[in-house]
């Protein structure tokens, strides 16, 4: 396929249709409006159905209905809308249904703002609704990666019978970049023999449900979910490492803001400071493996986020006390410059040297 120049939000849609998306239910909210707009135009042409719901609550429950009926279905929103969807997401996880959810996030709390932000990390990775569940969460850093992940997302959702979330921000959604849509790699996917398609008098009724009044049954569901999550940790963790082999300082950053951090690494290296970057592509499961491959030269880690520190908890867990973990972040739609990162990194290295008496 040829290279095309596309807005991130639209590339996500084109990739979703290539990934087999048949149904879209959503509600308008900035900065993701190009997604429902594109889907209202194109999904019908591709043989699918677009429906604008009366709210995010209704949209996610429509997703629950269509997914239970065996369809490939997605919804998209931005932070406050994703907050409203949490009830439905929890039910979808409890009923073990596949679907794809896009969050083109914005700053919070509350109505917040509409500028790029990474303040929804907890919401995405801790199971934003009630109960003991997780989503497979992808955080693409550029439009090509967003399209690649989206093409796979529906297959992965079907494979694990769980929601896959693509977490971006207004930067990813609104900017234009060249993108090549790749072929979907064929996978062996399980039959949806659990779907409510009508018994046709030929089988026992199928029931889509998250209610389990018997505690032993509910615990069994939770144990099964945990087994699924263990499989995800073994098979689906993705990350990029950049110049970590000889690094003294490794930044951890994800999504669009990791691109600024990558530039800061280049500047620091030019100044003679050995910096590197771990970029989680799956936020959940968090790529703890990446931290096992770090060199002996490492003196500190620094989590860099467009928030006041959420991923840093996972960085600390992965660091297991082996290295000090610093932090730098901006929020509310304020975006750090490469220079701010360089200065924060240099400062951390000075502090670490001071403490260790070097």
């Amino acid at each position, binding site marked *: 396929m040829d290279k095309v120049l596309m807005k991130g939000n639209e590339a996500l849609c084109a990739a979703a249709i290539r990934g087999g998306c*048949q*149904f879209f*239910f959503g509600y308008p909210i900035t900065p993701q409006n190009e997604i429902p707009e594109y889907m209202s135009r194109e999904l019908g042409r591709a043989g699918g*159905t677009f*429906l604008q*719901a*009366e*709210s995010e*609550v*209704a*949209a996610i*429950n*429509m*997703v*629950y*209905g*269509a*997914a*239970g*009926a*065996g*369809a490939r*279905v997605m919804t998209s929103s931005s932070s406050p809308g994703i907050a409203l969807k949490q*009830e*439905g997401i929890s*039910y979808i996880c409890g*009923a073990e249904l596949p679907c794809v959810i896009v969050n083109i996030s914005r700053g919070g709390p509350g109505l917040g703002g509409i500028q790029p932000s990474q303040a929804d990390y907890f919401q995405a990775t801790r199971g934003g609704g009630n109960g003991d569940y997780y989503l497979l969460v992808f955080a693409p850093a550029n439009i090509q990666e967003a399209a690649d992940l989206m093409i796979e997302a529906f297959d992965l959702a079907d494979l694990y019978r769980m929601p896959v979330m693509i977490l971006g921000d207004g930067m990813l959604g609104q900017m234009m970049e060249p993108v090549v849509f790749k072929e979907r790699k064929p996978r062996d996917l399980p039959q949806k023999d659990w779907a*409510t*398609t*009508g*018994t*046709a*008098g*030929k089988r026992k*009724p*199928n*029931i*889509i*449900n*998250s*209610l389990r009044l018997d505690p032993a049954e509910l615990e069994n569901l939770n144990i099964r979910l945990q087994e699924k999550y263990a499989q995800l940790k073994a098979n689906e963790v993705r990350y990029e490492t950049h110049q970590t082999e000889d690094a003294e300082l490794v930044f951890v950053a994800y999504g669009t803001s990791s691109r600024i951090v990558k530039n800061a690494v280049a500047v620091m290296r030019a100044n003679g400071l050995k910096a590197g970057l771990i970029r989680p592509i799956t936020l959940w499961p968090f790529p703890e493996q990446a931290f096992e491959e770090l060199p002996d030269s490492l003196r500190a880690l620094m989590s860099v986020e467009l928030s006041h520190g959420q991923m840093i908890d996972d960085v600390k867990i992965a660091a297991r006390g082996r290295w000090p973990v610093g932090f730098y972040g901006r929020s509310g739609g304020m975006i750090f410059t490469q220079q701010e990162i360089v200065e924060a990194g240099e400062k951390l290295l000075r502090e670490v040297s001071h403490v260790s008496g070097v």
Partner: protein
Amino acid sequence: MSVVFEKTKGLTEKEFHYCPGCTHGIIHRLVAEVLEEMDLLGDAIGVAPVGCAVLAYDYFNCDMHEAAHGRAPAVATGVKRALPEKTVFAYQGDGDLASIGTAEIVHAAHRGENITVIFVNNAIYGMTGGQMAPTTMIGQRTTTSPFGRNAEQTGAPIRIAEMLATIEGASFIERTSVHNPVHIRKAKKAIRTAFECQQNRKGFSMVEVLSTCPTNWGMSPLASLGWVAENMIPYYPLGNFRNPDKEA
């Protein structure tokens, strides 16, 4: 010996958990009989509410979804859009439909969603132990209106059938009751017409059924039936509010 009465194939063998004398059971049977008589059991997908009928998915002998509280019309919308040729129905209580789920029911009607909703109005939250619902009668004592519902503080009971009948997309809207055999037959006829409406792709259909909650009303089953006739029907008039066949 000839068979004069048989349990409908529309219900499974599972024993109902409803309290003695609760009319949820009668309403289940009517819906199940209609599905059987119309030969729709193999084709139907039902959506259960959160409320005393939460376990309806174990009772109806067809594919079922269990929805979050109030969201059944949105879940049914998702199912129907995915499977437009199938028969999709939701079964909801008055807390579910007339309180937490008002947005979902209004907009399912507004879109003319081609689904059928069975709305069981028992003027109370049965499942959670008898709290006040938007449909609770003035003066009715519940666990959260212990001195009787007071219109000044909590408004007057909401009439859902009349409200939905103002919506263009609503095709068939009728209020019925199951407090005596005559009305049970009428309710069954309305339920059948609602499903026919869906089969003929006429859009949204809803049958409101006035129902009892002897347990939380603090009455015997028999007294409860009388209470429906004496207190509910005068405020919630029975009858058809919208019918596609009556319109030009």
